[in-house]
């Protein structure tokens, strides 16, 4: 047993234990923190396989972004742990059935022995980050660019469909406000002086208008 194998087993043990903690921890915060540990050890195992790009991506994306997002959500939501555990016994048969199906599938896959190939021994200057970059930006640059355009279209479509001026907003443009002139607000109406008879008539007319 060489050193690498020992390291692998140590990392694997930590990974399994932390993964177990994710599902068994009582507090969601602890679960999320255990998830960070699980991601981190998984990244270490990838490093052992000389897949340093994947390892770094895992740390940056999952540990750095996704888990932080998890923590955010957990902290902003009011999660009642006791309430979430309520249906445990009721849902157990279904969960066991689903688990049994998954276990059978895994056993079936693992039993069909395929020849495993040891990772190729590459020279020390080989960088798979560089190789991936070459593949992505040289060989596959055309699909890569189209995917970029696709994202742009998604943004435009989302904005075009959701952004519009709502009729009921009370927003006033200050630029329009300062441009207001006297004649926009004041209207001079010349009216003859009213006598009592005319006033009566006027009232009658407005009443008729209302009825009509």
């Amino acid at each position, binding site marked *: 047993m060489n050193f690498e194998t020992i390291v692998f087993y140590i990392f694997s043990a930590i990974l399994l234990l932390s993964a177990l903690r994710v599902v068994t921890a009582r507090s969601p915060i602890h679960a999320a923190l255990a998830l960070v540990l699980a991601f981190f050890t998984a990244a270490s195992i990838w490093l052992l396989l000389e897949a340093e790009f994947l390892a770094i991506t895992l740390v940056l994306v999952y540990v750095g972004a996704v888990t932080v997002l998890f923590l955010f959500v957990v902290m902003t939501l009011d999660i009642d742990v006791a309430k979430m555990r309520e249906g445990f016994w009721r849902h157990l048969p279904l969960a066991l059935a689903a688990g049994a199906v998954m276990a059978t599938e895994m056993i079936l896959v693992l039993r069909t022995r395929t020849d495993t190939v040891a990772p190729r021994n590459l020279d020390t200057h080989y960088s798979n980050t560089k190789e991936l970059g070459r593949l992505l930006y040289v060989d596959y640059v055309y*699909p890569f660019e189209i995917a970029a355009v696709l994202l742009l279209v998604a943004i435009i479509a989302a*904005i075009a*469909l959701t952004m519009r001026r709502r009729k009921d907003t009370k927003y006033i443009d200050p630029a329009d406000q300062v441009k207001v002139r006297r004649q926009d607000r004041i209207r001079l109406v010349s009216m003859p002086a009213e006598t009592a008879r005319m006033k009566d008539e006027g009232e009658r007319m407005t009443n008729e208008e209302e009825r009509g």
Partner: protein
Amino acid sequence: MNIAMPNLLPVLPEIFVLAMACVILLVDLGVKQNRFIAYALTQMTLLFAAWLTLSDFHSQVEFTFSHMFVADALSDTLKLMTYVAVSVTLVYGRAYNGLRGLYRGEFFVLALFAMLGMMVMISANHFLVLYLGLELMSLALYAMVAMRRDSPQATEAAMKYFILGALASGLLLYGMSLIYGATGSLYNNEVALAVMQGVESKALLSMGLVFVVAGLAFKLGAAPFHMWVPDVYHGAPTAVTLFLGTAPKLAAFAFVMRLLIEGLQGLVADWQGMLVVLSVVSMLVGNLTAIAQTNLKRMLAYSTISHMGFMLLGILSGALSGYGASMFYMVTYVLMTLGAFGMILLLSRRGFEAEHLNDFKGLNQRSPWHAFLMLLVMFSLAGVPPTVGFYAKLAVLQAALQAGFVGLVVVAVLLSVVGAFYYLRIVKLMYFDEPLDQNPIKAEADMQLLLSANGLGILLLGIMPQPLMALCIYSIQHSL
């Protein structure tokens, strides 16, 4: 590390369209009052892209971007047709969109992006590129259908289109991945080579083929994968229906050519049978259901389904002349659809959609010229000589006959007779019924002119189909 710069010359039209779409997006932000600028810029983009494609017309096959992009006669011809279809669509839809709050910069930008997706599909030599092009086009189309968000019909149509489109994409992608598993490549020509040399697992390949054909049928709108077509055609604003009923069909044809014929020609015996079923069911469902429709947009949707069945007749013949006939059918179908929906757009006005069959009653009394144009379009859709629809149907039937599908041809002819009923019913309504609607027909001069040219083009091509047919055959021959 030395990196060879890919040859950008064949991709110039695509790059130009992409750049202009971004420019229009920015210009539209600056000039909010005058939408005409965005419209004019879009039309100029189409014109210039056509010039770019024309000035670099490929009679030889040329690859670039590590063989993922192919430029050949087929791609150039189809791209030119696509520009024309999009341009005409925008002219027809301008007044209609203006009255319905759709005359916005985003509309033009999304239309250009959808067209870019079509162009990518048309000249793809790699399954991944085909798929990405399809998604680019579809995503823009979903958004265009949903653009009139106050209309529940349009929203429903967009939702249906989106979900079924995603399902179809999933099927297609799954099929492609199975084919990749069987052949070990995603390049059209390498897949073709691997199929020719024989693959280890024929079952895997056949399975992939089934999924791919199902996905293609979804996108073409062939029965029994046609469920989305009537609802989307009916629910979308007519200008958008016109858009998604025309240019994307050309791209779908290119998709079939690249995938089934360039990539999986070796499996012709396998997909021929599937296409026969698709074709017969499409013609049956399309023609019979169209009879019961009272809404013209819905009727045209069912007519699309039946026309896709006819188009497949040429492809399933498995011969070069058959592919040429199919291409001819597709191009003329686009021309007819432009005419038919253009007429609906012409008769629509503020707050009124002329999408009911009754709205066409007595059109001859209101405007004999427009009634005559509609007559030409309907005759052509029905396949009555001397319009081009007759020649297109004749060509695909001939191709199927040469491949020995006599029974299929008999069924197709019988069903096209059934189909003639509902096209000629419109002619009857226009000429022999009293008009219900006496409003004068008003339209901009450019639309009037183009619509007349469209109708007369159908007649002219019917009398002289040879040049277009020769072009189709030439494109196919110089590309495969």
